[in-house]
């Protein structure tokens, strides 16, 4: 329904609406909307965390949703990206953040290729375990290797370069009506400890770029090959699809985005330690993709938002977070395995099946 409505709009209208949506997202932390804004933690920081999860979910979506590969060790790529920035920028060098990032994504992509090359020949459920093992190996190596900082981690990780151009005021709702608050401003662009919002803007910009490329790649031979592989790998091979090559490609692309996310994360935190990259995160990442609807980029964005935002919004439940999360996963698996926003295809299939049922019922009742 929604998809058809969207497509029936003329192109300029679509573009205009997207621009408005994007502007809204950028302005979000400054709008201080009631209800949405987190009461106990800095909203800009929360938005940053959420958007990093969104970026990660988009990357993992390529692996899990498009190519159909079970990856339970995605945090490994994330860690490689973060640690590359940490090592080059602080521990064994003092490279500026901007220079560390390309190296970080190359490193994570290479690790993706190295991991994928032997493991993608292994069948589905095993792949999940191997990738999980990989993620833990990365973390344990970082934990035990002194040249990677060991248990204490790496501090003084470089931040993105700042530009000091102007300051943007935020909105104040104290009096029930939004008023411009000139005392609470956010500088454009300062990447320091004091302001969380610019980091969020940076990640948001990256997300937009990734979304564009995601769509371009999905609507091409590459996307078709992934889908065919996921549907019936053997048949795809026999139709001339070099399935291994495309699976490896998906893995590498996922690793690229994972490493990029890690580099962005490190640039804001200023400090990384092995504790930031526990197995739990890989599982949360997969949960974000599955909850949202694997294979649907908007679905996984929604899933990432749920997984990252809800625990922050409902901090008072903090201790019970994981417990509830466990229950939620089970409930999701049983009652809504297709996720919150299943890919258009699954939705179409479900609708078509429903139509079929109705027709059949109609026939029998005649």
């Amino acid at each position, binding site marked *: 329904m929604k998809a058809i409505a969207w497509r029936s709009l003329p192109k300029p209208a679509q573009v205009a609406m997207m621009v408005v949506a994007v502007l809204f997202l950028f302005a979000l932390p400054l709008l201080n909307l009631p209800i949405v804004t987190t009461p106990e933690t800095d909203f800009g920081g929360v938005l940053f965390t959420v958007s990093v999860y969104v970026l990660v979910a988009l990357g993992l979506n390529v692996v899990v949703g498009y190519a159909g590969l079970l990856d339970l060790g995605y945090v490994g790529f994330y860690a490689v990206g973060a640690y590359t920035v940490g090592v080059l920028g602080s521990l064994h060098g003092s490279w500026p953040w901007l220079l560390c990032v390309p190296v970080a994504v190359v490193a994570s992509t290479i690790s993706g290729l190295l991991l994928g090359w032997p*493991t993608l020949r*292994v069948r589905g459920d095993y792949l*999940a375990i191997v990738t999980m*093992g990989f993620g833990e190996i990365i973390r344990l190596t970082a934990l*035990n290797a002194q040249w990677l900082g060991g248990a204490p981690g790496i501090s003084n990780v470089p931040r993105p370069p700042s530009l000091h151009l102007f300051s943007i005021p935020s909105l104040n709702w104290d009096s029930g009506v939004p008023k411009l608050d000139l005392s609470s401003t956010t500088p454009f662009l300062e990447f320091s400890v004091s302001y969380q919002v610019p980091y969020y803007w940076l990640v948001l910009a990256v997300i937009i770029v990734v979304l564009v490329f995601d769509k371009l790649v999905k609507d091409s031979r590459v996307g078709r090959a992934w889908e065919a592989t996921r549907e019936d790998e053997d048949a795809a091979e026999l139709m001339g699809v070099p399935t291994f090559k495309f699976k490896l490609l998906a893995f590498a692309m996922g690793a690229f985005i994972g490493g990029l996310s890690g580099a962005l994360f490190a640039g804001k935190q200023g400090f990384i330690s092995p504790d930031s990259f526990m197995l739990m995160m890989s599982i949360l990442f997969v*949960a974000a993709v599955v909850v949202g609807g694997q294979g649907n980029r908007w679905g996984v964005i929604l899933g990432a938002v749920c997984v990252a935002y809800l625990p922050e919004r409902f901090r008072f439940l903090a201790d019970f977070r994981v417990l509830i999360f466990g229950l939620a996963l089970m409930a999701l698996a049983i009652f809504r395995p297709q996720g919150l926003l299943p890919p258009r295809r699954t939705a179409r299939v479900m609708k078509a099946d429903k139509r079929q049922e109705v027709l059949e019922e109609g026939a029998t009742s005649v």
Partner: protein
Amino acid sequence: MDFLLQNFASLTVTGIAIGAVYALVALGYTLVYGVLRLINFAHSEVFMYGTFAAVWIVKILGGHAGGSVVQTIFWLLAMLVAAMAVSGLIAIGLEFLAYRPLRKRHAPPLIALISAIGASFFLSELMGLRDRVTGLVGLDTTLGDYVSGARNNVGMPELIHPERVFPLGNYDVTSVDVLVIGGAIVMMLLLDRFVSRSRLGKGMRAVAQDAESAALMGVNRDRIIQVTFLAGGVMAGAAAVLYMLKIGATRYDAGFVLGVKAFTAAVLGGIGNLRGALLGGFVLGLAENYGSAIIPNGTAWKDVVAFVLLVVILLFRPTGILGESLGRARA
């Protein structure tokens, strides 16, 4: 390297002892995988609950070291019964609540894995939050000691003072070692007997090979799956007892690392293959010990050995040392 050679005997015996624990837990993974092609992610919690059952029963009965032979045997049996019962029940509960509904809906394996992960988190957090949870229903003061400090290690009073039984090289094999290794072997023999001789055991093998034909032959698939989970749970319960005798402490998250290692053992030996699980367990226990003796500052890297072994095995010999066998190996 010197360290390895000097302590070869002790490393070997302790390796076999912990390997026995891995093997028993691995049996649970391999049984479920063989019959359902499902990695029971939550099996680690089945084990963990068994360890708590073992500790608590000892505390309730007031077990201690230096008791008479009859007393000690009584306490050991109590531990065994309690742990096996609790683990078995949790395993069956898991099957019923987390997996059966998915099976009935023909859910894809990724979804089953998600459910398994969710169950695993739920169960471990439940134990880790037992103080809060019991607090919600006002039982926390009554249960006092058993639920307070829910995130902490829970130690077990020493039941058997490790006394030297016989020397092996320069290491004195203790009574605990003998008990653990002996106990494990007994359990393995019992399970082997069960799977190869009993009717239910045959049913398990049939369902593992070809569920549809088995159904056509009158095998009740649901029942067999229940029994499989129960068997795995019981083995994990026994493993929990041996673990507590050897290691002496447990925690709400003690299942995780052990679970991964046991799963590695199962894969190492050939998933779906019972004897493989046993072999894998012992190989892993030894490899861990030897490996950490060779690597300088090795104890920190002990856990890495398991993961690296897992990755390497799956890459180079995914069918494991003995190859898959409970069911048919898929191409």
